[in-house]
């Protein structure tokens, strides 16, 4: 399968008055063409920073210090000029933000906002852009005659459809969806996710679906990357992640959610908290919360290892854990 995006050793640090926030740490990840990659992590894991780095949205004013490579279409996006990036952004790579309430302009009718994206990237007349904008509205399930309305006249689910229409307007090759349904109700969430999948299958778009919801991932993604403290701790196809779970953090996440299809008397939370990104532990970032951690885990940082072909795990103890061993350190 062709890789559409290859992120190599991406590092993003922010200089703040409280010290250096290590948001993304030496992160390597690639995406298969036409498939959906789920990027899962809790608040502060660096998911959004990762997406922003890919989009080139981290600016000097954010005091972001970046390193690594982001290969897309034969070019390293990190070496492109602002003008070149603008060509890529919105046309080849687009992004859907989490909150549809704040990502639309409240004083411009929605059809104009979609047309704006089309005019920015295609040489078409204003009339043609508007016609295409209405086509897009129709495609995301909003009647064309509502195009002249303003965002406040739409419900949350419909606003998110408008945002998706804008993102898909130029038929992008790669779509970064940052928690696209977190602000929505489950029945609306199901509609939006179905729609993203249909658009993907129709246009051959590759999707990066950033979410904290393991259910959304299991039902919508072919590949999954579990992110913890700014690095990928486990990567594999959706079956490997859910059925052959190898990293203790992923196991912990799965054990913390109440399941609809089985009865659990008591949830098993992961004790403790995510480490402070200004003071990450020296060894494995997860070691302080890990029930399998040994002295080695606390001293050395584990490299990525293959638990199975294409199933990458950042843990020293995968073999012992697989055999059902617990803490011996």
């Amino acid at each position, binding site marked *: 399968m062709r890789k559409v995006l290859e992120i190599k050793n991406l590092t993003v640090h922010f200089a703040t008055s409280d010290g250096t926030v290590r948001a993304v740490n030496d992160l390597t990840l690639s995406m298969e063409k036409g498939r959906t990659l789920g990027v899962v992590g809790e608040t502060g894991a660096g998911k959004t920073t990762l997406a922003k780095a890919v989009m080139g949205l981290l600016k000097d004013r954010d005091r972001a210090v970046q390193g690594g490579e982001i290969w897309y279409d034969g070019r390293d996006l990190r070496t492109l000029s602002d003008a070149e990036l603008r060509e890529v952004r919105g046309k080849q790579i687009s992004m859907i933000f989490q909150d549809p309430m704040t990502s639309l302009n409240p004083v411009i009718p929605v059809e104009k906002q979609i047309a704006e994206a089309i005019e920015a990237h295609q040489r078409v007349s204003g009339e043609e852009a508007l016609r295409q904008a209405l086509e897009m509205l129709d495609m995301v399930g909003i009647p064309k005659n509502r195009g002249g309305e303003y965002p406040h006249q739409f419900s949350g689910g419909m606003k998110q459809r408008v945002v998706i229409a804008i993102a898909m307007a130029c038929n992008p090759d790669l779509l970064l969806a940052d928690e696209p349904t977190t602000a929505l109700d*489950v029945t609306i969430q*199901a509609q939006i996710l179905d729609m993203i999948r249909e658009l993907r299958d129709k246009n051959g778009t590759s999707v990066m679906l950033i979410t904290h919801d393991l259910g959304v991932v*299991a*039902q919508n993604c072919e590949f999954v990357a579990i992110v913890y403290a700014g690095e990928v701790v486990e990567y594999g196809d959706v079956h490997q992640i859910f059925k052959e779970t190898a990293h203790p953090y992923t196991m*912990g996440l799965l054990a913390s959610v109440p399941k*609809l299809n089985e009865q659990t008397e008591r949830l*098993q939370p992961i004790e403790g908290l995510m480490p402070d990104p200004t003071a990450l532990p020296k060894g494995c970032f997860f070691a302080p919360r890990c029930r399998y951690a040994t002295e080695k885990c606390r001293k050395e940082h584990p490299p990525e290892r293959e638990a199975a072909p294409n199933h990458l795990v950042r843990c020293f103890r995968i073999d012992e854990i697989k055999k059902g061993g617990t803490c011996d350190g």
Partner: protein
Amino acid sequence: MAEYSAGGEQLVVKNLKKYFNTPGGKLHAVDNVSFSIRKGETLGVVGESGCGKSTMGRAILRLHEPTSGQVLFDGVDVTALKAAQMKAMRTQMQIIFQDPYSSLNPRMTVREAISEPLLIHKLYRRGQKEEMNRRVREIMDLVGLAERLINTYPHELDGGRRQRIGIARALAVNPKFIVCDEPVSALDVSIQAQVLNLMQDLQAQFGVTYLFITHDLSVVKHLSNEIVVMYLGEMVEKCRAEQLFTNPVHPYTQALLSAIPVPDPDYRSQRIPLKGELTSPIEPGVGCRFAKRCPYACEECACVPYRFVEIEPDHFVSCAKFAPADQAVQR
């Protein structure tokens, strides 16, 4: 009202209504809701945003004054109490709010936040610093807040710890009943599990009765004895927790259940797609409020008045098609 306390019912809600005046007419936020919760049990209330579940929780505590209806707490009609009596009643009935970021005063330390209810309800006087501090520490220990955090401010703490302060404030006055309004929605899953376990432990330890409001069906299934599903201010289905998942009857409940993404890639639910979005709760008129989105709706659904029918023991449904009155179990 002795029958209720004798039957072990902590809270009985009868025909509770809360309407708001809007320029377009009356907004029916809560319409004719009736249920009861037994002592030490949990009633889960689920529904999507705007279905009136939070308004209902607040109307029970009279944080919103109910438009009509009764709320009986230990047999006492809360809606008829005078202000001073109501204040005393609040030591029995407490609430935990959804958002631990906005429900705490940013200028109060943990100590001040937890002592506030103790002072308001005059359980301690300002002079009794020592005794009160002891009580604050005791409560902090109960909810799993380390003692060293006693002088910290909310902004210094993460969401999970802040929500523990919210729980501590509610518990401080030893209530018998707590309305939990989406207490874990703002938290990450690993932290959510910690808080849910804490709430279960507290219930086991003190026999507190919970009204647990949430949009998350997996959470509600995990915690509740009984579940109410709400849609546009009305109850559409009410039954024991396991019944709702093994035998959901109302088309809205079925659709809601089928829309939940299950964290198992092999599990594929038969999705029941819903057309459109929530209709307006302003002057909704007669007829089924779900009819416009319902895959099974027929013409008469728009004119059949609301009826909540018991179709099997403890299982109530408000659907004219799936629970016709003649099939109902008569009691």
